[in-house]
Every structure is written in C-alpha cells, then in structure tokens.
C-alpha cells in the first residue's frame, strides 16, 4: 500500500538524503548523503526502515507535510520540535524519538532545529527516483531528491502506508553521540606545516563559525601558517568529507558530505569516519578540539560505534499510544517492554 505526503510549506533548505552516491567521484560527483548518518539511521530504525533509507534532512527550518494517502508512520531524530494538526483540527506535539502514525489529512509541522541537524523518516523511506544510484540531493549539480533541489510547496513524496490494525508505536531514548575531542588522522598534507604549527592545531580550541553548509564548515582560531607562502597552494588532489583544509588565511575548513572531489588547499588532517556525524551537530560558537589517532584506532572506533548503534536499535520499545487503548494488548506489551526497555 502506498502512502503519499505533500509539502504544504517548504521551510528552509530541507533536502532528501540517504547514504550518498558511491562510484561517481572520478566524474566529479560529490558523495552527498546525510550529514549525520547515525541520526538518520535512528529515525529510520524507529519506523522500521533499513538504516540507509532516504529521509528528510532538516538544518534551518523544517517543512510542513500533509498526508494525502496513508496512514503513514513518521519519526523525528535530532534536536527539533514538531507538532501534528489532525484532520479534525486537534493539534498535538510530535515528539522526537518516537513514531507517530498519521492519517489522511493530518499535517506535520516541523520547527527549526536548535542548531545541529535533524531527520524525519517516513515508513518505507522517501521514494524519490534513484539518480546515479542514490536519492541524496546534490544541490550543486541538481541531482537526486526532488528535481535536485530543496523541498518546495506542492512536492509529492511517495512512501509506504502502514496498517492501523493493532496499532503500535515505537520509541527509544535520544541517541547521544560520543563526546571528547574530534579524532583525526594527520595529513595528507601535514608536511605543509612546521611541527610547531601542528602543535598549535592540536593544542587549541577551534570555534565553529556560522559559515557552515553541506559542503563544509569554517573554524576560527589561531592562524595556521604554512611552511612557506607557496605551500598554501597545492596542485589539486583528492579530498573526502572530513578533510580539514587550510587556505592561505590559516583558518581551517572541515569538508562535509557535499564537498568537491578534489581541492587545491593543503589538508592538515582528516576527521575519522566515526566522528564525522558529530560535526553535523555542531552549533556556531561551539568549540572543538582535535586529537590525532591512527587508522587502527579509527577502525576500532567505527566498529564500536556500529555495535552501540545496533544495541540502541535493539532497545527500541514497542508501545500502544494513548488514546487508542486496547487493555489486553497494553498489559502484554508492558510485560515485554519492561524487559527490553534500555532507557535509564
């Protein structure tokens, strides 16, 4: 059964994202995909999707979506508030970290994240056409998502309808990213800097500036002076999300999901895969510290993160929402949820 959502208000710069576009970087096509794939995977897990299903990424102000065919189940993950205006007029809060089943005519209204990045997952995933193997919106080349652009009023998003029979919702406590310094592997052009400058990089805080988009984030701190003025420009070579490039002004730029495939600034270090999602949750004014690790540590961190995320998914609790009480089911549900509820 198919579900359908229509965009009633566009919000600001909301895009369809999935795990990104692999196999096209030699053609200059960015990886793209969710800035915080862990948060997107949380939202997907709540509605029962595969972790890489396409979601709506929300960074500035969320959209309003009306259910045209349903029922449809949705889940929000991330630091954002939302409400549902039911077709009969009642307005209720739509909490993050729990699913909500929406009937035809219901309207979801998503607010502005308090900094960071949030995801709305819908049952079955947002079914926009695959383009170059992915649904991820890549604005610069108008690829993926809805006509390669941010959501606009009137856009129609196909998804899967859910059954309301014996209706159950699913919830989990908020996913918490790891804390501590952002782990990086030095290079590939750490040798463009004297060792004293590398110390400056690792021993100072870096302020997140408001200059942040899906291509990268600018940091502010003490100027990182290149070994020589010539060393500030290199003949372009390959880059990847997480690369920390240092242009002539000495202020680092961390590349993110929509970054170019090649770049001409030296890259002092590169953020490890496990810590990339944390960058999506940074807010202007926040201070970051970097610490160097090796590839083995980076890989162990990624394996550990996947394990923790699987545990989180395993701890999703099924419950019967208030207002649609079925006492016998509620009774048995409580017995089960008491055992699997991993929340503290």
């Amino acid at each position: 059964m198919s579900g359908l959502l229509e965009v009633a208000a566009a919000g600001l710069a909301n895009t369809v994202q999935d795990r990104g576009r692999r196999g096209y970087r030699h053609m200059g096509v960015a990886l793209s995909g969710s800035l915080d794939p862990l948060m997107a995977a949380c939202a997907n897990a709540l509605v029962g999707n595969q972790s890489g299903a396409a979601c709506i990424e929300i960074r500035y102000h969320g959209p309003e979506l009306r259910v045209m065919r349903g029922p449809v189940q949705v889940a929000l993950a991330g630091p954002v508030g939302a409400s549902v205006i039911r077709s009969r007029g009642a307005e209720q809060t739509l909490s993050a970290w729990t699913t909500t089943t929406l009937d035809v005519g219901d309207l979801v209204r998503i607010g502005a994240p308090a900094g960071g990045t949030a995801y709305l997952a819908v049952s079955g995933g947002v079914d926009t056409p695959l383009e170059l193997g992915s649904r991820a919106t890549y604005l610069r080349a108008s690829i993926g998502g809805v006509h390669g652009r941010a959501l606009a009023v009137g856009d129609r998003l196909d998804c899967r309808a859910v059954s309301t029979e014996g209706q159950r919702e699913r919830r989990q406590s908020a996913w918490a990213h790891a804390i501590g310094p952002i782990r990086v592997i030095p290079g590939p052009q750490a040798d463009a800097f004297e060792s004293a400058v590398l110390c400056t990089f690792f021993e100072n805080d870096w302020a997140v500036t408001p200059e942040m988009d899906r291509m990268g984030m600018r940091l502010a701190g003490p100027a990182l002076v290149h070994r020589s003025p010539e060393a500030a420009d290199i003949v372009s070579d390959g880059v990847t999300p997480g690369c920390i490039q240092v242009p002539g002004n000495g202020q680092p730029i961390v590349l993110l999901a929509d970054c170019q495939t090649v770049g001409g600034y030296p890259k002092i270090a590169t953020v490890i895969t496990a810590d990339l999602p944390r960058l999506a949750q940074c807010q202007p004014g926040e201070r970051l510290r970097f610490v160097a690790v090796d590839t083995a540590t980076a890989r162990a961190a990624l394996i550990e993160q996947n394990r923790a995320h699987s545990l989180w998914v395993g701890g999703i609790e099924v419950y019967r929402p208030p207002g649609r009480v079925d006492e016998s089911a509620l009774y048995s549900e409580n017995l089960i949820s008491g055992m699997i509820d991993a929340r503290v």
Partner: protein
Amino acid sequence: MSPKIEPVSQPRLLAVGDSAWTIEFGDRIDPLINARVMGLTGSLVTARETGDEPLLSAVVDVVPTFRSVTVHFDPLVADPDQLGQRLLSLAQTSGLAARHGRHWRLPVCFEGDLAPDLDRVAGACGLGRDEVVALMSSTAFRVYMIGFMPGFPYMGGLPAVLNVPRLASPRKRVPARALAIAGEMCAVYPWESPGGWNLIGRLPLPLFAARAEPPALLAAGDVVEWQVIDHATYQELEQALGKGDFDASRFLVSGETS
C-alpha cells in the same frame, strides 16, 4: 606501449582519514607524472574488474588527479593498512599510462557573445582573434582530471603563447558549456556557476547528463580536439543535443564511448 623513461621518484602513500588513501606520484602538473597516475588507475580498474582480490572489494571510488590517485574505501570491509600497502605495491609496478583514453573532436563556436573574452585574450597574447582560434583548433588537449564540479575537465596542452591569468574578479555566472582558459589550462564549465577563467567559446553539447551513460562525457586520460563551428551550426546542434540525449560516439575520433 610504455615508453622508456628516466628513473622517477617513488610514489608516496598518504592517509586521507580512515576511508581513503592518496598515492602521490609528484607535486606538479606534468604529463609524465599524470601518465603514472593513469597507469595506476588502469591497473586498479583492471584488478577490480577481475575481482579476485578480496582487499580491493572494499574500494568504492578511484579518483585520478593531476599527480595522484585517491582511492576511497569502506574501512569495515578491508583492513586500511593492508589495503594501503597493496595500493603502494600496485603503484610501484603499474607503469605509465597503461590506460589510453578516448580521442574526441568536439564542436566549439568561437563567435560573438559565445566568446566574451576572446578579443581581450587575443590582445593580451599579441595575436589576432583568428590566430587564437587557429591555435585552439590545431592543439590536442589532454584531460588530466575531472573535478571542481561534475564533469568539469581540467585539460593540459594549451600553447604557451595563450597563457593568460585568471580574471582578477571572477564572474558570478559563467554560462554552462563555456570553453575557458587560464594559466596553462583549458576547461569547459559543465554547469552555470561562478568562475574566474577566460571564456573564449561555447560548446553546443552538455558535458554532464545524469541520465546519460556514462554521465560525464569526458574522463581523465581522454584527448580532446576542438572543431570550429559557426553560429548557425552551434544553434542547430544545441537544439538537437542540449538535453544530453544523443549518441556521443559521433564525436569520437577513436576509442570506445564507455
């Protein structure tokens, strides 16, 4: 087909985080360095196609540049350090330009509004407009890499007499399919975008179309020559080809289209 060459420096293995390695053959734009880049790229493509190396199944993207190859991989599928050592050993044995690109002859109109900087470039080089066009159309350009934006070819081979600097103040909007030169490079903007290169012509056909196979018309290693067309022919071809739905092989001098 590998020509004998004088000994060159050993390739360097550089970590690009935990999910990519760059194998660097040099630090400058140089046909010989790029030939080694294309040599390794060819070896990697062949090794991945045969599929009998489990390590290489972790590879998701192979990106050749002017002077290096960046290999993106899934760090959960293969041990990053083992993969890095394998890439380095491939780089030491892969030789020169084992993979030859295709040879294209692509139509370009150098007239009027389609060539807004041509008069200025000609003046700066002490040449006439026709002499610049004659030089451009008698030169074979080599695609060093695709980057900056999807399908954007960085091409070397520009005659030294045509070396002009970038604009002091970049344009906010360069039209799609503009043929541009700056320094010792030639390029075509696949998309309308900001840009600081000198615009001396326009192609009637797109360089990137997501629905085409392959989506990017040009690839690193290709050779491109320009065929001069007049404004009427430009308009005719633009009508016919503008949407990217055409058989690219009609513009090939040699080589396969994919």
